[in-house]
């Protein structure tokens, strides 16, 4: 039994202390070479051994043949952020092999195709040459299957090297190939082949290995986009218009998949989610506004370039007050930028999207759980405030694999906002307020009431929606006072939103003088950084923003600390700027940490930023 074998071999291994369940495996391949399944199987097997894992796919903006890296981070303490140091490198891509080897940490284990002769490159890492090409010829008869099978061989080798239990690998394989017997068999054959060859021919000399623990029981692994898709579906989204764009396409596509199963009318079998693949993002948002105006929970999902194209329609939605949910899976901009790299670069432009005076509600999910729950919040807020609401996720959160507890079902009643749906509701409204005036602030919260086209057969029910000047009765006006009153009401409405948006997540009260403010996918690196800083004796409090506009907690948090570091994954310190505007007065206690090279944020960057700041 392989683990047994491992035990002995380990006894032979040199003195360096073993590293257990706390390192990263870095697999370098070319995209389109089918390595994805192998990597998933590795990750799954480790996960099933009860070890916390996260998986990050660093892929190029093309479809086949360019370098791709998949990193599996195992962390007994449950840290999931990107980590700079690499414990185990699996080198399958000749193009990048040399650079890949150069960048691993001393002491790392490097599995590579023998013929690449990498072992001359360094002498501070442990090399495991493997004759992958030879092995695959022996193991797989069908030539067509070899390109994929070769990737399974490294699974076997890694299993041997790191002590991944074969039983779990088998489970993972079965799951991966939906137990298609043939596929399962040939892949297992390749994996076993790799493992057996390694047993016979390799001696374990590195320090890395896995040992079963019990930290993943009952947990799920999911991508943020799938989580958001589930959230949208559970929130009862009724209309989706979208235009394909990386990294947001997978959100629309998994929503369509799930809806195909869970959103069919029980009686008629007809879909209860209407989907349009629009001709572009401009049209997509136009359709969403049409559907929202008609009374549907409507959404679109896109990335930066789409957000830019939605600027005009967003202004219409804000000013004519039409609910809409817009998901922005942020990628590296400006312009086309790096479509397959991550960033938090759209904060400023989205918060102020549109010419003229406009402000929008932004939700900032910081985990896959929140990709799910905030998707639901977004629809409630959009209908409550009759305005476009943006869910600001990013590529790291959206397209990478994250471990999480199963999402809780929400039986919170949907907030459909101030809508007069029936003649009775309309009459009651009129009885109370004399008339129905679409844009009148009868409740003092800045939010007017609305009717829906075709719902009520009564002259008093209708109004005219327009992006040009309108008064409380929704009739055309160019009067200065009408315009100003309306814009002031919109500002009042935005004030009201502050008591509805998700509150920030605050961990303080430790008496620490240093505070950290971050948002979105930065959370993982920040939490890890706090841990490490703590061990170094630097205590920090932490506030994670979960929405714009800001809420009082944030100003209070800043007031309560001497120095507050704001972590942005963009060049211009976009959230840092918005925070400075928010607190006003003396802003000098705020400091900016910026990460913007397209890679997910890592703890080191945060630590370096804070330590540098604390020196001066």
């Amino acid at each position, binding site marked *: 039994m392989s683990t047994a074998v491992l035990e002995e071999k380990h006894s032979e291994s040199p003195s360096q202390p073993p590293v257990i369940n706390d390192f990263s495996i870095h697999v370098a391949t070319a995209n389109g070479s089918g390595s994805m399944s192998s990597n998933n199987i590795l990750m799954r097997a480790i996960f099933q051994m009860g070890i916390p894992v996260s998986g990050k796919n660093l892929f190029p903006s093309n479809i086949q043949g360019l370098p791709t890296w998949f990193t599996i981070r195992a962390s007994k303490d449950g840290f999931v952020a990107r980590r700079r140091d690499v414990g185990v490198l699996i080198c399958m891509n000749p193009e990048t092999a040399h650079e890949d080897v150069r960048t691993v940490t001393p002491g790392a284990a490097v599995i590579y195709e023998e013929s690449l002769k990498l072992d001359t490159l360094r002498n501070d890492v442990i090399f495991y040459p493997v004759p992958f090409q030879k092995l695959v010829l022996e193991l797989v008869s069908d030539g067509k299957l070899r390109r994929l099978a070769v990737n399974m061989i490294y699974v076997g080798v890694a299993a041997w090297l790191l002590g991944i239990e074969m039983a779990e690998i088998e489970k993972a394989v079965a799951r991966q190939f939906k137990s298609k017997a043939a596929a399962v068999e040939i892949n297992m054959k390749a994996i076993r082949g790799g493992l057996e060859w390694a047993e016979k021919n390799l001696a374990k000399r590195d320090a890395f290995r896995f040992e079963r623990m019990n930290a993943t029981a009952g947990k799920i692994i999911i991508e943020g986009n799938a989580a958001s898709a589930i959230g949208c579906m*559970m929130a009862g989204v009724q209309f989706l218009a979208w235009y394909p764009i990386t990294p947001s396409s997978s959100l629309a596509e998994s929503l369509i998949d799930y809806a195909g199963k869970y959103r069919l009318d029980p009686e008629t079998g007809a879909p209860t989610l209407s989907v349009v693949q629009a001709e572009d993002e401009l049209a997509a948002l136009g*359709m969403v506004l049409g559907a929202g105006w*008609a009374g549907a929970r409507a959404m679109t999902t896109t990335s930066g370039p789409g957000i830019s194209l939605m600027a005009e329609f967003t202004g219409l939605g804000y000013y004519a007050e039409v609910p809409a949910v817009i998901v922005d899976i942020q990628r590296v901009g400006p312009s086309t930028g790096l479509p397959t790299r991550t960033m938090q670069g759209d904060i400023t432009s989205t918060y102020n999207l549109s010419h003229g005076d406009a402000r929008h509600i932004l939700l900032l999910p910081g985990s896959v759980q929140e990709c799910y729950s905030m998707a639901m919040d977004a629809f409630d807020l959009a209908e409550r405030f009759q305005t476009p609401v943006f869910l600001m996720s990013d590529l790291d959160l959206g397209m990478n694999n994250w471990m999480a507890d199963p999402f809780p079902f929400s039986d919170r009643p949907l907030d459909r906002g101030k809508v007069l749906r029936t003649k009775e509701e309309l009459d009651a409204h009129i009885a109370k307020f004399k008339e129905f005036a679409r844009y009148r602030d009868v409740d003092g919260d800045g939010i007017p009431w609305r009717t829906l086209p075709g719902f009520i057969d009564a002259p008093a029910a209708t109004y005219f929606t327009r992006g040009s000047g309108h008064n409380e009765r929704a009739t055309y006006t160019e009067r200065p006072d009408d315009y100003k009153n309306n814009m002031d009401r919109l500002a009042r409405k935005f004030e009201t939103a502050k008591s509805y948006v998700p509150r920030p997540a605050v961990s303080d009260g430790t008496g620490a003088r240093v505070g950290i403010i971050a948002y979105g996918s930065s959370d993982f690196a920040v939490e890890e950084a706090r841990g490490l800083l703590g061990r170094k004796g630097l205590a920090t409090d932490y506030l994670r923003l979960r929405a714009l506009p800001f809420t009082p907690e944030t100003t209070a948090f800043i007031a309560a600390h001497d120095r507050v570091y704001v972590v942005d994954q963009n060049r211009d310190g976009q959230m840092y700027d918005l925070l400075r505007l928010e607190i006003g007065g003396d802003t000098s206690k705020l400091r900016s940490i910026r990460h913007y090279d397209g890679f997910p944020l890592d703890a080191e960057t945060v630590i370096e930023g804070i330590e540098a700041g604390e020196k001066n």
Partner: protein
Amino acid sequence: MSSTAEPKAPPVNRVGLTVKEYGGSKSTLCVGCGHDVITRQITQALYEMSIPPYKVAKMSGIGCSSKTTAYFADRGHGFNAVHGRMPAVATGAMMVNPSLLAVGVSGDGDTASIGAGQFVHMLRRNVPMVYIVENNGVYGLTKGQFSATADAGSKLKTGVVNDLPAIDLCAIAIELGCGYVARSFSGDMKQLVALLKGALAHRGTALLDVISPCVTFNNHDSSTKSYKWAKEHEIPIQEIGFIPFYEEISVDYEPGTTQDIELHDGSHIRLRKLRADYDATNKAQALALCQEAQEKTEFLTGLLYVEPTKKDFLELSGLSRDPIVTMPETKFRPPKKALDEIMESLK
């Protein structure tokens, strides 16, 4: 009903409304603007078709023409979108509430210039709506620059000449498979109201390209979009009769000279051919006709092409006609068990 009405009382239609009750707010367009004439015909057609006004969704973009949706049926909701982007907004609305009757009014600039892309995709999808282009060859609201439907060689009062060929919206629509394509003239009210009724009864996109002179900027003699020019050059290809589904239809017509088309709601369009053997249901003929008209710069009006059985975007998308927006929450909000099932699959 109308027969039983008091002698003095104004006539009412089958839903008990007077034509006045299909009116809207006062027009702010120039006196004599072709658009106002079309507004009246739309009002008339809605009235005569006895359409419950609260079911009418008035869609438009930006322009003098696009303003006119405020001038009729103010018992229906209206949506004045941004410039050139009405088709998207209408698509979204109709996909969630097909019980609405979308009446879109646009201009040649709104449709053929900035709106060309959305126009093409609306047609390709066959979005259920009446789409009226009030075509005057210029941007009226911005003071008379040429639009993409201005004829080559036509001249503004300022002397500026348009060198580019006109986009033939009808030809594009036919090419893209639109099931109801008509050209008309705001001066030809009888024809226009008949075409409008047919359009209201049609399922899918019904395009009406209506020459509608801009009296302020493009009604001079050197213009090919003036009342004078249109009156002098209009050549109707048919005499158009509309028989609503609730009326008996006479069967006595000579098949050769008359074409009878049944629409999905059971209404009929009767085309008395003024052009021997022109078959309005033949796509190739329709395309050839447009082509010929372009070459000879003939102003042919009538129902250029009709194909009443085409599937509209809802059918193509496999949606039911039961509006998604009126479904009970239970139908569009999945139960806990659905979520649990999904969570299981991710463990």
